[in-house]
């Protein structure tokens, strides 16, 4: 495999660029995994509820970071994203989050669960290093079960190798 971290960075930058062009950042977010609480449904368009998932997504650089093939290191781009998340979490100290780890489809099922867990933990550990109480962060790995991009190509896989922060309540 010749996919490297740079692919993910480019994909990540591309996504950020797309986000910057539109008034509400990642509008093209994929549907959330069943029952993970991505869509809290508490906002009806009249305003963003502080501490909600919508508030979180509107406030941070991105709700997700991306990884290279079979990688789990948090690079400078990811650190900037997680720093924005940490700032929001510090402003909303009662809020708890789930970090969902994911892998692309080009790995075997069980290994990808371990890999997704590794990625989610890498993000959790970085948030903890920024002073976020780790007990506020729970981790779940979906392995390759819940791809965000459905294609079978490098671009889609780069979007799927991700750790997503999801607000679960206070």
């Amino acid at each position: 495999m010749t996919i490297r971290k740079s692919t993910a960075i480019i994909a990540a930058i591309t996504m950020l660029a797309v986000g910057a062009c539109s008034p509400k950042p990642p509008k093209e977010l994929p549907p959330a995994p069943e029952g993970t609480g991505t869509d809290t449904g508490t906002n009806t368009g009249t305003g963003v509820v502080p501490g909600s998932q919508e508030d979180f997504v509107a406030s941070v650089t991105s709700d997700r970071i991306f990884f290279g093939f079979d990688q789990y290191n948090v690079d400078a781009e990811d650190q900037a994203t997680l720093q924005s998340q940490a700032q929001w979490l510090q402003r909303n100290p009662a809020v708890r989050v789930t970090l969902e780890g994911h892998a692309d489809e080009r790995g075997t099922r069980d290994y990808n669960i371990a890999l997704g867990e590794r990625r989610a933990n890498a993000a959790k550990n970085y948030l903890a290093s920024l002073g976020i109480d780790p007990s506020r962060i729970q981790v779940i790995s979906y392995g390759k079960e819940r791809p965000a991009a459905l294609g079978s190509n490098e671009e889609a896989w780069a979007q799927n190798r991700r750790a997503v922060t999801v607000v679960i309540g206070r």
Partner: protein
Amino acid sequence: MSFRTTLSFALLLTAAPIAAQAQDASAPTAPAVTQTEPRETIEGQLSQERTVIAVPAFATPAVTTVAGLRTDNLGRDIAKVIADDLERSGLYAPLGPGSVRAIGMAEVTAPRFADWKARNAENVVHGFVRATGTGGFVVGCYLYDTELGSELVRQGFEIQPADWRRAAHKCADAIYSRLSGESPFFDSRVAYIAESGPKGNRIKRLAIMDSDGGNHRFITNGQALAISPRFSPDYKKIVYVSYLNNRVRVFIYDVAAGTQKLVTESGNATFAPRWSPDGRQILYSMAVGGNTDIYRVSAEGGTPVRLTTTPGIDVGGSFSPDGKKIVFESDRSGSQQLYTMNIDGSNQQRISFGGGRYATPEWSPRGDLIAFTRMGGGEFRIGVMTPTGGGVRMLTNSWQDEAPTWSPNGRVIQFFRTTAGREGKSTLWQVDLTGVNLRRLPTPQDGSDPSWGPILP
């Protein structure tokens, strides 16, 4: 389950003369009881020297209806299942009940060999179905050599109506074993994951079926993701991973009771479960803070034993059939490779050294081979190697074949095949050890994670 081989066979055959008369009267038959199933597709070439075996509809001494099953219809359906089993093995070219004439009861023990030789059949299967009078059936199963005019197999099975397919599979097993010299494998079951819905939000349900896709049954309703099931050796339980309550945990599902329990209490993700050959222990993997290791615990609960400690991802694992060793995968070398260890975790040795990454090892029930998924060159392929890593042979060649599981006799491997793209989906396949007899298994929905159990008790 009252399913026993009938020993007093001579006694059963006393009905034969009566049968010869009854048979003629039963020519027009009601629709067969076999449900419509998706056609299986065959890819790859079959052996050029497949033995032709005639399998006419089984005779009946008297047309009787028990539990909605007519003995004459059942005779044809059983012959069809036998012919399909033999065909699926890739070794035989059966002439099933749809392509050869029916037989009279008297022929069961006195075949008209000239007729079958005229059809170029080297062997002929005969049998009968008779109501027991106590709510069940007796099925007789005979195999003959048409050239020698000799009897090769004679077996009888007493069955409950719901188990009629098992009588067919046991007859097919007896024929296959006698002719090939291999151990039987048709009378066995498969647990797998039935898949439906869009790729980004698949519904995945635990399901079970016979080795030929018959008697299909969904177990879970799909509300929680279900993955990686394994039948216990006695078929009473299924260990699998459920995302119930948005956690990743190993459960043991009790098939008869319809209840499930956690294998071990932990705040961490537990996954990749496997039974020990005696069904008393369970192997699983647990991820703790980004590090995954393999554990072993009693199926009844208790304190888990940690078997691996190397930093990295140690995952999966499969017991050798003697229960003394475990093959597993680890990325401790920098990429996924296969390792063996003793069941206490000692003597860990890498066994895969070829190019690419190796995953999902499964020890053959014969003990002689380990099946695996090899990733490399943009493909996932199924292959086998010896327990020390020698004799690597690749059996499939596709974009993404994954997760081999062995037939009870260690001669056939099932796996799942995923196609690429937004509409990509997974289906169940099987291939024999020669790599040429490749077929898709019929399932009502898409399928993944097959787990083939042993010969039914």
